[in-house]
């Protein structure tokens, strides 16, 4: 079932018009996928760099602890790519040792020319040890038309639930827009955070219009944003959205956008993981508050 464009727009309009989108204190924000209405936790986890620890048993145990905490906090999207070194194998190892916990929304990518795509997907599946992926995305638009053919065929055959296309670092937005208009996948993944906001102009509205779920990578600009803000006091009005740390502030800004489905901050620390997950609780900022948040960070 694909949720209609009208329903999504009405929902988005309601979210924008509502003074404050409130989740219950005990329930984390989960957003419905436009394609099916399936709710997905608004804070997932990325694996770029942090989970690329090779065969090191000590560091793998640390990653496993982060994954365990992620599932204790409700799980959600776990995102990786063949480009991320050993991250896929580390995730697969953690999933096996954690006894395949409930709450996993498995997301990976195809990062090669289309002729090699199926073999790479088979290798990725082997690393994760999953029967099928929830989401497979074309990494950085590589050979995107032909790779989407492969993913669509897998979805048609019931071997994949959702398809997607990714970009990062604000690159190739015109090409991504073309994909979203001409051949809309179920998901797009792009860079969006409180300072990298170019996608607000065209891509996020287009995602709403086309009924495409949005995953936001680099929510902390690879840790630069929390580092930059560390030591500065949060504004008093941040209490209105029940924010007590800068990472929560940064994540609430992202996941409260009506077009955004989830943010995927990467971390290797359990305390950071729990802090990130806590951003999905409590009231979310409305459009006016979001503008205020962005202006405040820009002024610092």
């Amino acid at each position, binding site marked *: 079932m694909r949720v209609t464009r009208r329903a999504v727009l009405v929902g988005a309009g309601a979210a924008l018009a509502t003074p404050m989108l409130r989740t219950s204190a005990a329930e984390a924000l989960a957003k419905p996928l436009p394609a099916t209405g399936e709710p997905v936790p608004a804070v997932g986890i990325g694996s770029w*760099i*942090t989970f690329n620890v*090779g065969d090191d048993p000590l*560091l793998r145990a640390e990653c496993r602890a982060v994954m365990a905490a992620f599932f204790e906090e409700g799980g959600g999207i776990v995102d990786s790519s063949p480009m*991320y*070194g*050993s991250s896929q194998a580390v995730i697969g190892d953690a999933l096996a040792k954690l006894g395949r916990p409930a709450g996993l929304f498995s997301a990976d990518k195809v990062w090669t020319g289309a002729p090699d795509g199926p073999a790479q997907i088979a290798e990725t599946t082997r690393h994760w040890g999953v029967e099928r992926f929830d989401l497979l995305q074309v990494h950085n638009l590589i050979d995107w038309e032909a790779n989407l053919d492969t993913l669509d065929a897998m979805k048609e055959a019931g071997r994949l639930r959702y398809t997607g296309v990714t970009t990062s*670092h*604000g*690159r190739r937005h015109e090409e991504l827009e073309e994909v979203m208009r001409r051949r809309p996948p179920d998901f797009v993944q792009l860079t969006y955070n409180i300072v990298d906001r170019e996608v607000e102009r065209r891509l996020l509205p287009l995602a709403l219009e086309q009924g495409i779920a949005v995953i936001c990578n680099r929510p902390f600009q690879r840790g630069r944003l929390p580092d930059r803000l560390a030591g500065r006091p949060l504004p008093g009005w941040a209490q209105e959205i029940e924010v007590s740390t800068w990472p929560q502030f940064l994540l609430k800004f992202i996941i409260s956008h009506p077009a955004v489905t989830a943010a995927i901050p990467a971390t290797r620390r359990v305390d950071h993981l729990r802090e990130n997950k806590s951003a999905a609780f409590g009231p979310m900022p409305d459009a006016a508050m979001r503008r205020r948040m962005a202006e405040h960070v820009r002024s610092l």
Partner: protein
Amino acid sequence: MFWTFEDLLLFEPRVYWRLFALENEAAWPAQPVLLAAGVLLVVCLLRGWRPSARWLGPTLGAAWLWAGWQFVALRYGTVNWVAPTLAWGFYAESALVAGLGLSGRLTFAGRGRRARAGIGLLAAALVVWPLFAPLDGRSWREAEIFALAPDPTAAGTLALLALAPRNRWTALPCVAPALWLALSALTLVTMGAWQGWAVLAGLLAGLAAWAVPEEKPAGQT
């Protein structure tokens, strides 16, 4: 937004340093043997003895083969998918120094200030490099040892080539160590590690030592 070298860095510094701990654990007790042999070689060189390239060339080749295969391909390759390709440069260098040594095209008979500069750098590669880890506040287990870790192996090779005549045959084996040290320095500096500057200094010292003109024997005009 443009790609930077930092965007291409796939791992965190702690992951990179832990690779040396794992390598040292697997190679133990080779480290004290290698260190003792290295110190003995430096002392002998300082006393004027010059080794035959027919055994030192293949020995150096074995060091490149081991560092390339065990560390670069098998260990570094677990966190950097480019590493197994880079290891081919180590295998080529291994074959080159071994072949040049066995063929007689390579000798380590140099004397004078060029050779002294080479011996100084060799001592640094053998003895100073392992100190980088504790100087950085890390464990001795992460020490980088000549013949096991690529950086001191490359720096030590440049050092030994400063004892060889300066010609095209001895220029050729300078290429792989120089390229590796340049890449390593860039990686470490991007990681925010001060060791990157030390590696760069090692590279420049090695190239400078090799470039020093050979002194003609006394009486020759």
